[in-house]
Each structure stands twice: as C-alpha cells, then as structure tokens.
C-alpha cells in the first residue's frame, strides 16, 4: 500500500467536513486551513467528532489510537492530519 501523506488526509477531511456541513444545511467551506480548529469553529462538536474518527479510520483502513494526541491538537486540521497519516503508515 502506498504511503498516506498528511495532504491526502487533509483532502479527505475537507471532503468529509464539506459533505457534513451540506447535509446539515450549513454553509460549506472550500478549504480547511491547517490551523483551523474544527471544534472551536463549530464544524464538529464532540458528538460529530466520533463520526469523524470513524470516517478517518475507514480512510486509513485501520483503527486510530488517539490516546497520545494532545487534546489541544486533536481538533486542529494540521496536527490531526499529520497524526492520522502517521497512524495510517504505522508510525505512531
């Protein structure tokens, strides 16, 4: 399997969040900047975060262990994408 990059994860994340916002009837986004905090921006709440995790696990094709990710970074696009990519590549 080819290596998953943070950019791959970010592209997936953008599609996912865009789709979610549309299905909720909310204003969609074109891009998710790396410093965007999904929680504080209201794009996901703690309930929606679980759905997002499930989607990321499907994308990464493995269970993701979030235990080691700092909560300050868990919902910020850049660190989240790097972390998921590392997990997908079995490096974290």
């Amino acid at each position: 399997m080819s290596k998953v990059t943070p950019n791959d994860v970010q592209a997936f994340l953008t599609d996912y969040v865009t789709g979610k916002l549309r299905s909720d009837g909310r204003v969609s986004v074109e891009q998710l900047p790396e410093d965007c905090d999904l929680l504080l921006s209201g794009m996901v709440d703690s309930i929606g975060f679980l759905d997002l995790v499930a989607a990321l696990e499907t994308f990464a094709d493995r269970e993701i262990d979030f235990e080691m990710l700092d909560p300050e970074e868990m919902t910020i696009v850049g660190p989240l994408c790097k972390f998921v990519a590392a997990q997908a590549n079995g490096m974290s």
Partner: protein
Amino acid sequence: MAIGKALWEGFLRSAESFPDHPAVFAEGCTLSYRALHMQSTRIAATIQAHPEFSKVPLTAVFGYRSTAAFSGVLGALLSGNGYVPLNRTFPIERTEVMFERSEARSIIVDTGSLPQLSRLLERSKQELLVIMPDITTAHKFRENWPAHLFFGLEELSPSGAWKEPIAVPDGTAYLLFTSGSTGVPKGVMVSHKNVTSYIDYMVNRYNITDQDRLSQMFDLTFDLSAFDMFMAWERGAYICCPSQKALINPGKFVRDMNLTVWFSVPSTVAFMKRLGMLKPRQYESLRLSLFCGEPLPVSSAISWLEAAPNSVLENLYGPTELTISCTLYRWDPVQTLGEAEQDIVPIGYPHPGMNVLVTDQNLNEVEPGEEGELLMNGSQMFVGYWKDRDKTDAVFVIPPGRPDVFYRTGDRVRRPIGNRPLTHLGRIDFQIKVLGHRVELGEIEAVVRRITGLDGVIAVGWPITSSGANGIEVFIEGDVEHHDALREAIRAALPEYMVPKRFHCSKRLPRNVNNKFDRKAMVELLERGL
C-alpha cells in the same frame, strides 16, 4: 463534622479549615479556597447591597467552565438566593426563555457569555443587576445599557460587607430547567434541604477528604454538576473542570490532574473506548469511579475498570427531581453479572431517607419480580416545578392505600425479589436519552409543529442504542419543501443534540388501532431503511 441546613455552609467550613488548598481548576488556572471565598463573598455582598433585585430569591449564573461560573454559583448561594444556571452553548432563544421564566433579576456573567448578554438585556422588561467578575470595570456597559445596573470586579462590594444569610432549609438552592413536553423548559426547584441531606450521606459514603481531586465533567445546567461542586467543597477537596477542548481527551485530563474521583455519564466511557483511551491501568490515580445519567452497560463498566483498576465503581440513578441521584449500585465482578438485566448494570438500592414503590399504571404496587413504574419519595424529593402547578400535580401522586406523596419517575424498573437490586428497563413515557442528555420528544415535536404549522409531527430516537439513541428523526404528516431551512429554524430553538438529523414527510403517518400515531411502526420503517 455536622452538616448544616444550607448548601453554602460546607464551603465556608472548608474555606476556614483549608484556605490555601486548591478549590477549583477551570480555564487552566486554580483558585484556592481563600481566593474563591473572597470572590464569591464579594459577589454575594453586591447582591445583598441591592435587595430590590432579590424579591424573587434567584440569581442566574451565565457561565461556562470558568472560575467566574463557580464563584457565581457560590456568590448566588452566599447572598441567600438560589442559582439558576444558564449555558451559552444552548441556543440563545432557549436561554432567553429560561432566564425570563426564572424571573431572576440578578445575573452573574463570565467573559465567554458576554456576547450573548445583550439578548437578555434587550428582552428584559425590568431593571437587572449584572455582575461581571471577569472584567475590571463595567463602565462601557453602563453607558450602553443605562436601564440596568452593572458591576465589574473592581466595583463589587468588599468581602467584609458580606453577611451570612439566615439558612432557609426549604428555600430553593438551585432552579434547573429540563426539557418540557409542551416545548417550554420545566424549572425543577431543588431545596437546600434536598441537597444537604444528599451530600451528608454521600461525602461519608465515599469518605471524601481534602486530598481528593474530583472531575467536573458536567455543565452547570446538568444537575450532576452539583455533586462535584458540593461534595468537594464540603470537605476541602479540589474540583477540576476540563475546558471544552479537554473534554475531547478526558483520559489525558485524568492523568494531568491526577484525579482521584471520576464522575460522568456512561456515554463518556463509550467515547473514550472508541478513541483508544481505555487501556489497562491507565488511570491508576482514581479511587472512585461513578456513573449516572443513563443506563450503564456491563461492557462499559468492565472496560473502565481495566483502565482504572484501583477504583471502586458505582452506578448511580436519579432524575433531577430527586436531587442528583437517589439509588446506587456497587459493581461486583461476580455478583453484578448475575444481577444485570439486558446487559445493563442495576441501579441498586435507594439512598437512606428515600423510599421506593414499583407500581402498575393504576399506581398499585406490582408483585416482586414484576415490571412497573418507579415511584419514589423522601428527603431528596424536589419541591415542585417553578410556577407550574399543573405539571407539579401531574408528577406528585398518592398511590391507593398510601398516606404519602410519591414522585413518578416515568422510569420502568423491575421490583426486586428479596434483597436483589433494582434494575432499570427504560422509559415509560417519551422521554429518552440522546447521548446522555434527557430529551422530551414532545418538546422537539412542539417546536417542529410551531415552525411548520403542521399538526402531525412525531419525533423518535434513532439509531437506537443500549442507552437511548444517538440522534433524533422526525416524521411529518404533510409537505415541507425545505428541510435545511426547517433544521436551521429548529437549531435556533433547541440544543444541537435535540436537532433532528432527518425529516420524513408523508401524506399520512402510521396509526394504531386507536387511531393514535404509531411510533413503533415509524421506528420499524427506519429499521427497514424506509
């Protein structure tokens, strides 16, 4: 140590005995008992200096996970008023209704809630006393809102001006709004006597000391938050309130704060399990793990205890109307598996001073081993719904042949045989749990009916989980063209967990033989994928 008749007394004793101990952690900083005492007595003295604002003896606390929120709760109590928690994460329309219905004329506001304050000020027909402990001076507010009275931190009365109020055990300690079936939240009045009798029992049962560090996972608008605050402050312990962000990784918070007592809804266990945060022996600092608010699955308890092996686990049960919790069950690795029903940990046995009756629909006691509605009374039974005699009368009943009044919980339980524990089997009415929150489906229906103008509206919990439901779906008899617009309108009136995920419109909704809407048939439609 004797427990007084007012909820603030335990805090005052602790502030005297342990002035330099940490009392509360919030927003990344800690207030000692001395600092919390200083701030809360200054707030209280300011309220006392303006008695015209306490004709209705209630003060609203518009704060979220902040030190100002905690000092606000104490400040309200120390002034002699009860507190009414408001929550900025709720839709402002709901907050407006709660504040207006409470008739409180004093309000304590933290920085994060200030952007929503103007809505309350605009809507108020009466002058309000507004206390903002997070800002130095309130002169800008005075300029912009001359009809109201404002106080920033520097403008509060001195602590020395505060006078301890006369304890009124039957007075309201807090007024908490819960979901109401008519679309209007119900105000549950809980007295000082209700809470102090509860705390008296629980601090001794759990042997809380000044060395304990308790989690504070609940928002102030969830009555379980009162457990953390008043259990800790009764004994000089430390409550640790995670930020909204830290709630995403509760495990790290347990370790960082070295917590000894954990209290949450069971959904948090499922959440942590899902995110890989329940590994063996991760939370060895915990000596006590408590769960309440929804059914606790056996599998969740087992997973939790693997991660927190040094802790005693207890499952608590209790509606807001019976003050935080009124029954409990201690987990036993062997016995519980034989006593659990539907893989849910039993709710156990009533607290001292609380009485249980399991009845049929005519309020006659069922035989041991049979199912029925749980009725309870005793020292923790609430006073009634605020300014709502009809709703109060509907839940207070005198069962046939009984001399005393009981509260109808609406919960289905099995009457124990012999010394077995009570087991919880679900809700009798249409109150359900959505991700740990108590939701009255009727409230959602009322809002949808109001917005659409259509009468045939049925809300159901979907998808169904062992503890309730993960969300809400709404069936509508008639046509609604713009589902997104409808959802937005609902979002403005209800918290996010009550906002329906989908709407299903049809010319005629399923009905049963009595020509009543058939909820069960609607759930079956969802099971079949419509």
